[in-house]
C-alpha cells in the first residue's frame, strides 16, 4: 500500500491537480456549447486507446485470447476518438456558419 504511494507519488499529484484544472477550465460554459463540450470531452476519454496500444505491443503473438480482447478494446476506443472528434467538429461547424 505505502509502496504504491511511494512509487506513484507524481501520478497522484497529477491526478489531484488535474481535477482542479478540469473544474477551472469548464466552470463557465455557455449553454450553446454544452453538447459540443460534452462530445469533445467524450472523445478525449478515448485516450484509453494508448493503453490498448501498449497492451497489444507487448502481447505474445501466439496468445490469441489476449490479442482478440485487446483488439476489441482498441477498436472501441478508436470509434470513441474518431467518432467523437468528427461529430463535435460537425456540430461546431454549424455554429460557426451563423456568426457571419
Amino acid at each position, binding site marked *: 500500500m505505502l509502496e*504504491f504511494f511511494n512509487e*506513484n507519488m507524481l*501520478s497522484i499529484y*497529477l*491526478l489531484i491537480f*488535474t*481535477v482542479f*484544472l*478540469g*473544474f477551472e477550465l*469548464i466552470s463557465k460554459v455557455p*449553454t*450553446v*456549447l*454544452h453538447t*459540443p463540450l*460534452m*462530445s*469533445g*470531452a*467524450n*472523445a*478525449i*476519454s478515448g485516450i*484509453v*486507446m*494508448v*493503453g490498448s*496500444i*501498449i*497492451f*497489444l*505491443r*507487448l502481447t*505474445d503473438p501466439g496468445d490469441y485470447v489476449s*490479442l482478440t*480482447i*485487446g*483488439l476489441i*478494446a482498441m*477498436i*472501441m*476506443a*478508436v*470509434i*470513441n*476518438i*474518431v*467518432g*467523437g472528434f*468528427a*461529430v*463535435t467538429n*460537425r*456540430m461546431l*461547424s*454549424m*455554429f460557426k*456558419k*451563423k456568426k457571419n
Partner: protein
Amino acid sequence: MEVYFQLAYLIGAICFILGLRGLSDPKSARKGNIIAALGMGIAVVASLFYPLEGDVVPNNYGWIAGAILVGSAIGFLSAIRVQMTAMPQLISIFNGLGGGSAMFLALIEFLNLDPAQSSSTLLPVIILFTIFVGSISFSGSILAYLKLDGKVNDKQVVLPNHQYINIFLMLFSIAFVVFTYFVPSPVTIIISVIICLIYGFSFVAPIGGADMPVVISLLNSVTGISAAAAGFIYDNQIMILGGVLVGAAGTILTILMCEAMNRSLINVIIGGFTASGDAAGDQGDQTVISLSPMDAAILLKYSSKVMMVPGYGMAVAQAQKQTKELDDFLAKNDVEVVYGIHPVAGRMPGHMNVLLAEVDISYDKLCDLEESNNHLSDTDVVLVVGANDVVNPSAIDDPGSSIYGMPVIEVWRAKQVIVFKRSMNPGYAGIQNPLFFKGNTKMLFGDATDSLKKIMEEIKTL
C-alpha cells in the same frame, strides 16, 4: 531516447488542456476541438513507437493497424451520417465504447496477472476498480442509447422499489469485486464483470425524461474516470491526465444540469421523475381550448413579439426546419421572434441549441431561462413546440408535484400560449400539465411539423 516520447506525451497533454479550454468559448470552440484531436494524434503516435521494456517487443503492428482502420471507419461514418436529431444517442454510444474499452483492457490485464508478482502491489486493486467503473459506463451508456433511440421505454426497465434494488446491486457488485481480489480466477473475474454490467444497466434504468441530460453527462464523467484508472495500470501520465480532465468536466456539467433543475444529484439518480407518477393530479373535469391552424396564423401575424419554446418533441417531429420557416416569415412582417431555451430541454445538455443551429437560427435569438422569463411580460404569443415539463406551472405552485421547485419558463405570463401536442396524454413522466387548462392557453393538436406547415399555408394567405 525515451525522453523524446515523454516530451511528446507532454505536448499531447498540453493540447488536451488548451483544447478543452477552447471548447468552453464559442469563438474558439472549433479550434479547441481540433487542438484536442491533434493532442490525441500525438499521444497515439508516441505510443506506437514508445520504446517498451523487454528484449524483444512483439509490437503486433498488424493487429494495431487493423483496429485503427476498422475503428476509424466505423467512427467516422457514423459521425458523418447521423441525423442531428439522433445526436444524443450517438454521443451516448461513443461514450459507452470508451468505458467498454477500459473494461476489456482491465479484464485481460487481470487474466494475465502473474499471481506471485501481484500480491505485493496495488495493481490488482486498480485493475478491479477500472473494471467496476468501465462496466458501469459501458452498460449504462448502452441503456441510455436504447432509451434515447426509443428502443426501450422507461416503464419496461423500471422495477418496483428500484432505488433499493440499485443500492443492493451496488453493494453486491462492490462486494463481489472485493471477493475477486481475494479469490482471483477467470471465473470470479468474469462473474464480477457481469454483475458490474448489470449494475450499470440498472443504475440508468429509473432515470428518464428531463433527467436524461444529467445522466448523459454523468456517464461521460464515469468514462473519464475509467480511462484515468486504466492510466494507473500502465503508469501512463497522459491517460491519467486525459481521463481526469474528462471526469472533472463531466462532473461540472452534471452539476450545472442539476442546478438547472434545482435538484440534487442523488435525487436524480434515485429517479425522482419516474418514481413518483402519483403527482398526476386530477384534472378530470377541466377542459382545454383547442384552436385551428388558421386561428394560430392570425394570432401570430398580428402580434409584435413571439417566443418559441422548443422541447424534445421538436426533435422527435423534426420540426426545426418548419420553425425556421415560420421565424423567417414573421421576421419579414416585423414580428420579433425569440427562443426560450430551458437548460434541460431535450435529452442532452444543450440539445436544443444544436437543433436550432442546424437550421441556421442565429444564436443571439436564443434566450436562456432567465432572459426568457424577462421577455415574457411583453410577449404576445408563445409557441410551445414539443416542450412539456419545462413549461409546467406545477413546478412553481404545486408542492405535491415531483417537479416542484424546478425553475421553468413561465410561458403562461405571456398574453397567449399555443401548445403543439399530439394528444392529451401526459408528458414523459406521466405528470399532468396544468398549463393546458389555463385560460390563455390554446391547444393545437397534431404532429408539430404538420401543424407548423398548416400555419405557414394559412399565414401566407392573410
